Protein backbone atom coordinates (compact mmCIF):
# COMPACT_ATOMS: atom_id res chain seq x y z
CA UNK A 1 0.00 0.00 0.00
CA UNK A 2 1.45 3.28 -1.06
CA UNK A 3 1.59 5.65 1.85
CA UNK A 4 1.01 9.20 0.88
CA UNK A 5 2.81 11.26 3.43
CA UNK A 6 2.99 14.40 1.43
CA UNK A 7 1.76 17.29 3.53
CA UNK A 8 1.66 15.16 6.69
CA UNK A 9 2.11 17.23 9.81
CA UNK A 10 2.06 16.67 13.51
CA UNK A 11 -1.63 17.51 13.36
CA UNK A 12 -0.86 20.52 15.48
CA UNK A 13 -0.24 23.93 14.01
CA UNK A 14 2.17 25.39 16.57
CA UNK A 15 2.63 28.69 14.80
CA UNK A 16 -1.09 29.05 14.19
CA UNK A 17 -1.91 28.24 17.82
CA UNK A 18 0.62 30.78 19.07
CA UNK A 19 -0.98 33.45 16.90
CA UNK A 20 -4.45 32.45 18.03
CA UNK A 21 -3.44 32.67 21.67
CA UNK A 22 -2.23 36.23 21.11
CA UNK A 23 -5.54 37.08 19.44
CA UNK A 24 -7.46 35.52 22.34
CA UNK A 25 -5.46 37.51 24.88
CA UNK A 26 -5.89 40.77 23.01
CA UNK A 27 -9.49 40.45 21.80
CA UNK A 28 -11.02 38.53 24.68
CA UNK A 29 -9.01 39.15 27.83
CA UNK A 30 -7.44 42.56 27.39
CA UNK A 31 -10.51 43.94 25.64
CA UNK A 32 -12.80 42.81 28.48
CA UNK A 33 -10.42 44.14 31.16
CA UNK A 34 -10.09 47.50 29.44
CA UNK A 35 -13.86 47.82 29.07
CA UNK A 36 -14.49 46.92 32.69
CA UNK A 37 -11.95 49.51 33.81
CA UNK A 38 -13.26 52.30 31.59
CA UNK A 39 -16.88 51.51 32.46
CA UNK A 40 -15.97 51.67 36.15
CA UNK A 41 -14.38 55.11 35.61
CA UNK A 42 -17.61 56.28 33.93
CA UNK A 43 -19.62 54.95 36.84
CA UNK A 44 -17.38 56.80 39.32
CA UNK A 45 -17.97 60.05 37.44
CA UNK A 46 -21.73 59.50 37.46
CA UNK A 47 -21.75 58.69 41.17
CA UNK A 48 -19.62 61.73 42.10
CA UNK A 49 -22.21 63.95 40.48
CA UNK A 50 -25.12 62.61 42.51
CA UNK A 51 -23.69 61.42 45.82
CA UNK A 52 -21.13 62.61 48.37
CA UNK A 53 -19.87 61.14 51.59
CA UNK A 54 -17.80 58.35 53.04
CA UNK A 55 -20.34 55.74 52.02
CA UNK A 56 -19.99 56.76 48.38
CA UNK A 57 -16.22 56.36 48.56
CA UNK A 58 -16.56 52.93 50.13
CA UNK A 59 -19.14 51.85 47.52
CA UNK A 60 -16.82 52.88 44.70
CA UNK A 61 -13.90 51.20 46.41
CA UNK A 62 -15.84 47.93 46.81
CA UNK A 63 -16.67 47.85 43.11
CA UNK A 64 -13.04 48.72 42.32
CA UNK A 65 -11.90 45.66 44.25
CA UNK A 66 -14.40 43.56 42.32
CA UNK A 67 -13.05 44.88 39.00
CA UNK A 68 -9.50 43.97 40.05
CA UNK A 69 -10.61 40.46 41.00
CA UNK A 70 -12.39 39.98 37.71
CA UNK A 71 -9.44 41.25 35.66
CA UNK A 72 -7.07 38.98 37.55
CA UNK A 73 -9.45 36.06 37.08
CA UNK A 74 -9.59 36.71 33.33
CA UNK A 75 -5.81 36.78 33.15
CA UNK A 76 -5.51 33.58 35.19
CA UNK A 77 -8.03 31.82 32.93
CA UNK A 78 -5.98 32.82 29.90
CA UNK A 79 -2.74 31.59 31.47
CA UNK A 80 -4.36 28.24 32.15
CA UNK A 81 -5.50 28.01 28.52
CA UNK A 82 -2.06 29.00 27.27
CA UNK A 83 -0.38 26.44 29.50
CA UNK A 84 -2.68 23.58 28.50
CA UNK A 85 -2.50 24.34 24.81
CA UNK A 86 1.28 24.63 24.94
CA UNK A 87 1.53 21.29 26.72
CA UNK A 88 -0.70 19.69 24.12
CA UNK A 89 1.61 20.98 21.41
CA UNK A 90 4.66 19.62 23.23
CA UNK A 91 3.00 16.22 23.61
CA UNK A 92 2.13 16.23 19.93
CA UNK A 93 5.76 16.99 19.20
CA UNK A 94 6.95 14.04 21.29
CA UNK A 95 4.55 11.70 19.57
CA UNK A 96 5.85 12.93 16.26
CA UNK A 97 9.46 12.34 17.37
CA UNK A 98 8.76 8.77 18.36
CA UNK A 99 6.30 7.74 15.70
CA UNK A 100 8.92 6.52 13.28
CA UNK A 101 11.70 4.43 14.77
CA UNK A 102 15.15 5.65 13.90
CA UNK A 103 17.52 3.04 12.60
Amino acid at each position, binding site marked *: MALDIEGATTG*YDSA*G*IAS*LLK*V*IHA*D*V*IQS*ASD*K*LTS*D*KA*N*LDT*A*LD*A*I*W*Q*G*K*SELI*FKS*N*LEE*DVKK*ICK*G*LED*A*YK*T*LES*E*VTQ*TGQQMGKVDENLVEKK
Partner: protein
Amino acid sequence: MSINDATGVIQHDVPDAFENIETASAAVQAQVGDPAGNFITGTASYGADFAGIASDKLDDFNKAVDTYRDAAIEILDGFDTQKANIEKAFKGSTAESLQKFFTSIKNLCNAYVTAINTEKAYLLEVNQNWINTTAQISSDIETDAGVVDAQKDTINLQ
Protein backbone atom coordinates in the same frame (compact mmCIF):
# COMPACT_ATOMS: atom_id res chain seq x y z
CA MET B 1 -20.17 72.28 88.57
CA SER B 2 -22.25 72.02 91.68
CA ILE B 3 -25.49 73.93 91.85
CA ASN B 4 -24.27 75.37 95.16
CA ASP B 5 -21.46 77.22 93.42
CA ALA B 6 -21.55 80.97 92.92
CA THR B 7 -24.23 82.11 90.47
CA GLY B 8 -21.63 83.33 87.98
CA VAL B 9 -20.17 79.82 87.66
CA ILE B 10 -23.57 78.23 87.07
CA GLN B 11 -24.49 80.81 84.46
CA HIS B 12 -21.18 80.10 82.75
CA ASP B 13 -21.85 76.34 82.58
CA VAL B 14 -25.31 76.40 81.08
CA PRO B 15 -24.50 78.69 78.14
CA ASP B 16 -21.57 76.39 77.29
CA ALA B 17 -23.89 73.41 76.99
CA PHE B 18 -26.28 75.43 74.88
CA GLU B 19 -23.43 76.69 72.70
CA ASN B 20 -22.27 73.12 71.98
CA ILE B 21 -25.71 72.12 70.75
CA GLU B 22 -26.02 75.30 68.72
CA THR B 23 -22.58 74.70 67.19
CA ALA B 24 -23.43 71.11 66.30
CA SER B 25 -26.73 72.05 64.70
CA ALA B 26 -25.09 74.97 62.89
CA ALA B 27 -22.47 72.62 61.45
CA VAL B 28 -25.17 70.32 60.11
CA GLN B 29 -27.18 73.22 58.74
CA ALA B 30 -24.11 74.54 56.96
CA GLN B 31 -23.80 71.26 55.13
CA VAL B 32 -27.41 70.91 54.11
CA GLY B 33 -28.27 74.56 53.80
CA ASP B 34 -31.28 74.45 56.07
CA PRO B 35 -32.26 77.68 57.76
CA ALA B 36 -31.60 77.46 61.53
CA GLY B 37 -35.25 77.56 62.45
CA ASN B 38 -36.29 74.70 60.16
CA PHE B 39 -33.67 72.33 61.49
CA ILE B 40 -34.30 73.01 65.16
CA THR B 41 -38.01 72.54 64.71
CA GLY B 42 -37.19 69.17 63.09
CA THR B 43 -38.78 69.45 59.68
CA ALA B 44 -36.03 66.99 58.64
CA SER B 45 -35.96 68.42 55.15
CA TYR B 46 -32.27 67.53 55.01
CA GLY B 47 -33.36 63.87 54.96
CA ALA B 48 -31.52 61.90 52.32
CA ASP B 49 -29.59 64.97 51.22
CA PHE B 50 -27.12 64.76 54.07
CA ALA B 51 -24.12 62.67 52.98
CA GLY B 52 -26.42 60.10 51.45
CA ILE B 53 -27.97 59.87 48.02
CA ALA B 54 -30.24 62.84 47.45
CA SER B 55 -33.84 61.65 47.26
CA ASP B 56 -34.26 63.29 43.85
CA LYS B 57 -31.07 61.56 42.67
CA LEU B 58 -32.00 58.00 43.51
CA ASP B 59 -33.25 57.41 39.98
CA ASP B 60 -29.92 58.69 38.61
CA PHE B 61 -28.07 56.38 40.95
CA ASN B 62 -30.10 53.35 39.88
CA LYS B 63 -29.62 54.25 36.24
CA ALA B 64 -25.85 54.71 36.61
CA VAL B 65 -25.35 51.37 38.33
CA ASP B 66 -27.74 49.54 35.98
CA THR B 67 -25.86 50.96 32.96
CA TYR B 68 -22.61 49.73 34.44
CA ARG B 69 -24.07 46.30 35.15
CA ASP B 70 -25.53 46.05 31.64
CA ALA B 71 -22.12 46.87 30.17
CA ALA B 72 -20.71 43.87 32.07
CA ILE B 73 -23.52 41.72 30.61
CA GLU B 74 -22.50 42.93 27.14
CA ILE B 75 -18.99 41.68 27.76
CA LEU B 76 -20.46 38.36 28.84
CA ASP B 77 -22.55 38.09 25.68
CA GLY B 78 -19.52 39.08 23.61
CA PHE B 79 -17.68 36.02 24.87
CA ASP B 80 -20.22 33.77 23.13
CA THR B 81 -19.59 35.46 19.78
CA GLN B 82 -15.83 35.31 20.23
CA LYS B 83 -15.95 31.66 21.24
CA ALA B 84 -17.95 30.77 18.14
CA ASN B 85 -15.30 32.40 15.95
CA ILE B 86 -12.26 31.01 17.70
CA GLU B 87 -13.29 27.44 18.42
CA LYS B 88 -13.31 26.59 14.71
CA ALA B 89 -9.51 26.58 14.85
CA PHE B 90 -9.28 24.21 17.78
CA LYS B 91 -9.62 20.45 17.63
CA GLY B 92 -9.28 17.58 20.04
CA SER B 93 -7.81 18.30 23.45
CA THR B 94 -7.11 21.93 22.59
CA ALA B 95 -10.81 22.35 21.87
CA GLU B 96 -11.53 21.04 25.36
CA SER B 97 -9.08 23.54 26.83
CA LEU B 98 -10.76 26.35 24.94
CA GLN B 99 -14.18 25.23 26.17
CA LYS B 100 -12.98 25.28 29.78
CA PHE B 101 -11.43 28.70 29.25
CA PHE B 102 -14.64 30.29 28.03
CA THR B 103 -16.65 28.58 30.73
CA SER B 104 -14.27 30.10 33.34
CA ILE B 105 -14.45 33.63 32.04
CA LYS B 106 -18.23 33.49 31.59
CA ASN B 107 -18.63 32.29 35.17
CA LEU B 108 -16.41 35.15 36.29
CA CYS B 109 -18.49 37.75 34.53
CA ASN B 110 -21.75 36.21 35.73
CA ALA B 111 -20.42 36.43 39.29
CA TYR B 112 -19.48 40.05 38.70
CA VAL B 113 -22.95 40.97 37.41
CA THR B 114 -24.41 39.33 40.52
CA ALA B 115 -21.96 41.27 42.70
CA ILE B 116 -23.02 44.57 41.15
CA ASN B 117 -26.70 43.81 41.80
CA THR B 118 -25.89 42.81 45.36
CA GLU B 119 -23.81 45.96 46.02
CA LYS B 120 -26.59 48.15 44.65
CA ALA B 121 -29.31 46.51 46.72
CA TYR B 122 -27.15 46.72 49.85
CA LEU B 123 -26.34 50.36 49.23
CA LEU B 124 -29.99 51.29 48.79
CA GLU B 125 -30.74 49.60 52.09
CA VAL B 126 -27.87 51.46 53.77
CA ASN B 127 -29.11 54.75 52.34
CA GLN B 128 -32.59 54.13 53.73
CA ASN B 129 -31.05 53.38 57.12
CA TRP B 130 -29.17 56.68 56.86
CA ILE B 131 -32.40 58.53 56.18
CA ASN B 132 -33.98 56.91 59.23
CA THR B 133 -30.93 57.58 61.44
CA THR B 134 -30.59 61.23 60.51
CA ALA B 135 -34.29 61.76 61.11
CA GLN B 136 -33.75 60.37 64.59
CA ILE B 137 -30.72 62.65 65.16
CA SER B 138 -32.83 65.63 64.16
CA SER B 139 -35.49 64.59 66.59
CA ASP B 140 -32.95 64.06 69.41
CA ILE B 141 -31.24 67.45 68.87
CA GLU B 142 -34.60 69.18 68.81
CA THR B 143 -35.38 67.53 72.14
CA ASP B 144 -31.99 68.51 73.62
CA ALA B 145 -32.36 72.09 72.39
CA GLY B 146 -35.73 72.22 74.07
CA VAL B 147 -34.24 70.97 77.33
CA VAL B 148 -31.45 73.57 77.27
CA ASP B 149 -33.94 76.31 76.47
CA ALA B 150 -35.91 75.24 79.52
CA GLN B 151 -32.76 75.32 81.66
CA LYS B 152 -31.87 78.79 80.40
CA ASP B 153 -35.31 80.03 81.33
CA THR B 154 -34.93 78.47 84.76
CA ILE B 155 -31.55 80.15 85.36
CA ASN B 156 -32.83 83.52 84.17
CA LEU B 157 -35.68 83.35 86.63
CA GLN B 158 -33.29 82.82 89.56
